[in-house]
């Protein structure tokens, strides 16, 4: 039926055939697909190790068709450190949620970033604990109702949301930091660009890279998938502005192109 047509969008090679167990409209699936596409485009599948963490994405090792290590809650950056110190040329990425990364694993992410460990973190921020049924996350917005902030998060009770990119941006170690949203086609395209940049940063050996992806949790937000992406665009981005915070690869490329530019110098 399609013999005369060219396939322009195919199922990524870096994903297994296993059907993802995410709720309808949950953008974990989008993030997985983007990461897999980047792995395919860079041709690094056979030297990539996926670090699955604790949270809804606990089965990431079943979805990504790469070697994988399942990590205890919050410790993926330490596990990644161990792998990379043994195998510097292996491409390692940790797929962490907001509870895993910004709550229980805050020490590990900050120190791995500070050391400039050469691996990539894909950080899904959906402002809620999905797997354990909708409790408050460190990134839950003020006023947001969760099953452990039933009247809405208030600062006196539960403090303020944590901005991970901004926090890590105070460190010298990271080489690439960006926040994107998985809400609309342009944002999703940018998200993929950022993910690719992060992996390229690692391939170039420049150090720690992290992409924060503003994501949805229709189930525990009590919204339809469409309402949820609208919520990302209209509410989450107010607290978590979309930006590329750091891109040392670009800085390096700038230098190189300056060096190779004809007519420059003496």
């Amino acid at each position, binding site marked *: 039926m399609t013999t005369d047509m060219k396939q322009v969008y*195919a199922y990524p090679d870096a994903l297994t055939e296993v059907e993802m167990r995410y709720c*309808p*409209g949950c953008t974990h*699936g989008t993030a997985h697909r983007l990461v897999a596409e980047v792995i395919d485009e860079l041709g690094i599948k056979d030297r990539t190790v996926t670090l699955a963490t604790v949270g809804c994405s606990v089965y990431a090792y079943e979805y990504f068709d790469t070697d994988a290590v399942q990590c205890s809650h919050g410790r993926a950056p330490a596990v990644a450190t161990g792998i990379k110190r043994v195998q510097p040329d292996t491409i390692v990425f940790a797929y962490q949620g907001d509870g895993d990364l910004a709550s229980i694993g805050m020490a590990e992410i900050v120190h791995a970033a500070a050391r400039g460990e050469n691996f990539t973190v894909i950080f899904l921020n959906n402002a809620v604990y999905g797997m354990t049924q909708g409790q408050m996350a460190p990134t839950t917005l003020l006023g947001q109702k969760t099953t452990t902030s039933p009247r809405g998060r208030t600062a006196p009770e539960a403090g303020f949301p944590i901005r991970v990119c901004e926090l890590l941006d105070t460190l010298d170690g990271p080489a690439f930091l960006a926040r994107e949203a998985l809400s609309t086609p342009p944002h999703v395209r940018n998200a993929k660009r950022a993910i690719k940049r992060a992996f390229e940063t690692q391939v170039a050996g420049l150090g720690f890279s992290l992409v924060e992806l503003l994501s949805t949790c229709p189930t525990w937000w009590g919204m339809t*998938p469409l309402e949820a992406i609208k919520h990302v665009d209209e509410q989450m981005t107010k607290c978590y502005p979309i930006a590329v915070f750091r891109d040392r690869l670009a800085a390096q490329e700038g230098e190189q192109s300056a060096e190779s530019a004809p007519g420059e110098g003496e």
Partner: protein
Amino acid sequence: MGKVVIDQERCKGCMLCVEFCPKGILAPAKEVNSKGYHPIECNDEDECTGCATCALMCPSVCIEVYR
């Protein structure tokens, strides 16, 4: 001229592709699939340009696009 192939069993009917299809030619099926979701179908194949926006937005990774 394009064509979308939506895996009816993997589709969870989340409607993100429907929302962003520039031609407005995607819609949920009347029937449910084995998981109880109304999978998305293309109801006017001639209109499809193969722009792949639907696949870009699909969290279930169940859309293939040809052009």
